[in-house]
């Protein structure tokens, strides 16, 4: 107990000092070699995921249902962002090269 007390006090102090909950840190997914890197990311609700095309050929980022999100064509160096507000599993693919697939899993930590 003697050792735990300072830690508990520190935690309480931090909690008092903490501001209102901020948006989760953004997450980046790189597109390279005709692959989404990383192909599966797990994020908290409210997270913005940004894809960057680092290939020398254009790609797209399109939800499997083709509705939830759909980027315009991304030429080399271009990006697309989407904020995931609702828990769930979101499969997506490149509509130009449909063998390229990825997944965003949204769940509260």
């Amino acid at each position, binding site marked *: 107990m003697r050792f735990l007390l300072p830690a508990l006090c520190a935690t309480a102090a931090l909690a008092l000092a903490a501001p209102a909950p901020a948006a989760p840190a953004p997450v980046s997914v790189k597109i390279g070699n005709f692959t989404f890197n990383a192909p599966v990311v797990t994020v908290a609700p409210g997270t913005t995921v940004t894809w960057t095309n680092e290939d020398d050929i254009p790609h797209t980022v399109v939800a499997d249902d083709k509705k939830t999100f759909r980027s315009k*064509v991304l030429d080399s160096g271009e990006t697309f962002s989407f904020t995931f507000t609702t828990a769930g599993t979101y499969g997506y693919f490149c509509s*130009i090269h449909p063998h390229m697939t990825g997944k965003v899993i949204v769940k509260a930590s």
Partner: protein
Amino acid sequence: MTDHPDRRRVLECMGWAGGGLVWGLTGGVAASALLGGTASAKVAGATPFTFVQVSDSHIGFTKDPNPDARATFREAVAHIKAMPQKPAFILHTGDVSHLSKDQEFDDADQILKEAGLPVFHVPGEHDMLDEGQGKAFLDRYAKDSPAKMMGDGWMSFDHSGVHFVGLVNVKELKAGGMGHLGEAQLAWLKDDLAHRAASQPIVVFTHIPLWTVYQDWGWGTDDSAEALKLLARFGSVTVLNGHIHQVLQKTEGHVAFHTARSTAFPQPAPGAAPAPGPMKVPAGQLHDVLGVRTVSLVKSAQPLVVVDQTLA
């Protein structure tokens, strides 16, 4: 009836000469055609007609190994204009543009117009990148197409006894899949072929291969088996496509598959690289891996000679 499919034997003759590949198919007669500008004249003595296939012009592509895909497309058209026998028409098997931009299509059309020949277009996946996901391509090419475009742009027409079928396999692609024809197009194809004699030669042109070249890279068409079933009763079927930017051939029964070179950049052999992106080649070797294709058909013996020529 010398060309009855049951008696028909499809022979393939392949040879290299002058940087071009010759692939001859005949009904019952071996047509060993060699390059040198007289390939078609060696066959049966009949007057052939010739058409040209160009593919994957990717107008707008500016990266390694080709900083100017417009220039190489111009060279391809100049190559066509210089052919000793004037082709009857041109088939463009897709990826006219790189990003489906109006300017890219405009430039491609302006360059191709120089050939002074009718052009039949089927789209590639790079031609489906506008807001309307292919509407720009269809609006542009449907109005002046020498053959009526149906549905998403598929078509058929006849020339000198040969039946040509243009198929669209780049629309509404699905996650994890490959090229796709779809039920509506397959139903149309069934009707289109239904009343034709099995002896009529068929030429199918499309963008993505109708045989699975390499599934890991999506180089195939999910539902092509349905189309090939409809084509199986014909004695001579030639399938021409682009998409993979290299010359490959395969024969299954009476069906010969030919993939074409691009006029913009090469891609690696199936599985030969980590990804199917543009293959880097030294500037001095670029023209060795770009090209156009001529196809000649001779009516009397029904041979078909496919000649792939580089831009070198």
